[in-house]
């Protein structure tokens, strides 16, 4: 069980980092600011 939780946490960290990177990079490539709302 403990191992599964550990795997789950590692997976979440990788996936969240990956999708955030995707969002940022693909908006940046279009010259747009992904963090627009948070910078305001």
């Amino acid at each position, binding site marked *: 069980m403990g191992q599964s939780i550990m795997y*789950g946490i590692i997976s979440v960290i990788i*996936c969240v980092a990956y*999708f955030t990177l*995707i*969002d940022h990079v693909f908006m940046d*490539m*279009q010259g*747009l600011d992904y963090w*627009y709302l948070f910078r305001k």
Partner: protein
Amino acid sequence: MGRVTRKNLFSIMALCAMVGLLLLPIVMALPSPATGEEAPTADGAKKDGDKVEKGRDVYYKTEGIVVGAPAPKTMDGPRDYPRYNFESRVLLWFANQQHLYYGSFVLAVPIFCMVIEFMGVMTKDKALAKRYDQLAYDFIKISLTAYSLTAILGGILIFTFLTLYPAFFGYLSSIFRPVMHIYALMFVAESGTLYVYYYGWDKMKEGFLKWIHLSMSVILNVIGTLLMMLANSWIGFMMSPAGVDEQGRFLGNIWHVIHTALWNPLNVHRLLGNMAFGGGVVAAYAAYKFLASKTDEDRAHYDWMGYIAMALGVAFLIPLPFAGYWLMREVYAYRQQMGITLMGGLLAWLFIIQATMIGILFLSTNYYLWQAMGRMRGAEKYQRYIKYLVFLLACGYLVFITPHTMVMTPAELKAMGGQQHPVLGNYGVMSAKNGGINVIITTTVLSFVWYMRGNKVSTVSWAKFGNIFMGVFFACAYINIIWLAIYGYYIPANVRVGLSVPQVATTLSCLFFMFALNSVMMKGAKQMGPIEWGKISVRSQYALIMLATAFTWMMGLMGYIRSSVRLFWHVNEIMRDNSPWAYTHTTGFAANMISFNVLFFWLSILFVFWLGSLAAKKAPVEAKAGVPGSVPQPAGSH
């Protein structure tokens, strides 16, 4: 040995002849752009001095020497618009649509043959290789009769143009004269290659000759794709003309006329669309044969055939919406008003219908895959989760089809408090719709992944981590798609418009990474039992027929939308349509017409299938002896 060598020599010669045929139009086009006269040169222009008239390209904005006549200014009457006591446009619509259906089918099926034949050559399992070969042969056999019908329908289409729209067709052929000749030559090359490819199947089934045969299929498909691209240049020119001045006079550069603003997006969109459509039609054929089968062996074969055709069709259906977005983006870039007419104006309701059809396609695909899991032992473990996929699909679908505004009576408008519904009105925007369709596609990818691992248990040492990672990856992908859809409501439109790209990237990440990860995990996996081909519910086969019908209907609809966006122009902003039918039909009339075209296509292709079955019945011995593996055995893998 000598016989084999002679065979090899003949095969290589045939292949060289096909390459020669393929290159012939290019060679013919080299000496001059074939404008019908001597191409004007810079020297010639200098000699003639002031006599040379120059024009400015309406799209490329380059100057060129006028070599063509202006677009005719037509008038309603028997000279420009001869007619029967009937709307000429409807006759043309019918001829065009039927030709397109059959054309798409016969262009798509050889591509499938090429892929499946290649899989057969590459696979190490000899029994499976024979089955792939037999399947590819079955595919090309179906398309052969349809090929003749395509040519006949092409002839009917040209005669319809010539007799009912002579002024317009005269102008178009004066611009595209060299392209039309090249098109005709390519058609000859396509026919020759197809017949050699089909009739040479048995004689070239092994060793080096098989590779020659496979190379022929590559050439066949290159010719087919070029044919489609040439035909696309005509509709591209009608929508977004180039290479002519504002009066429609040809400026001598045939490449400008072909390479219009919308040509490439149309090429990509049509190629993918044809493939998805071809897959759907073959899947429906397999479903029909499955339902009519009397023996378990036949059922197993047609079940397998239906699955392969469906998988190939859906493989091209998944990127189709993205190609559609690119096409629309280019339409907006070319003429913003044209884009608004399509998606926010006169034709917007047709896009709601289109969304409904796209949703049906994906729902049918998912339903088929869930049913197909029934034929493999071990897939029961996924059954209890299917209801969650249904929930996701239903939510995505409902958001995807919600219109922005409704057509209402004043009383209804008053009761609702405005044009938009206070709750549902929020979903009728692109931000939500992008989220909806991406959820649907991601769910389809998930269904495929479950299907692929249905009867297998991974034996890799990191299987536990792999499974958890896949689950988390899909969950995060859903969250990211929905988050981006909601985020779009809180930021300005010029920033929001870019969110569709990371949404698409998220969906494609699931497609590529999860398929790859699953394949690695399932390498050498323990099988719970073989796939029992033929042991699938009858309902699943109706889902395949539904899939094919929805493809056909949607193709008709999208063709109508693309054509209607020109409104009252034969050639957009160059040649006006002055016939009495230069108006946009009501949505109801268009839907009835599309349904009629779909019905006619299916009835006629059923006839084609029946003809094919007659040929099979006449030569049972030859078929069995000539094509090994005609009696299928259940496959161990897929």
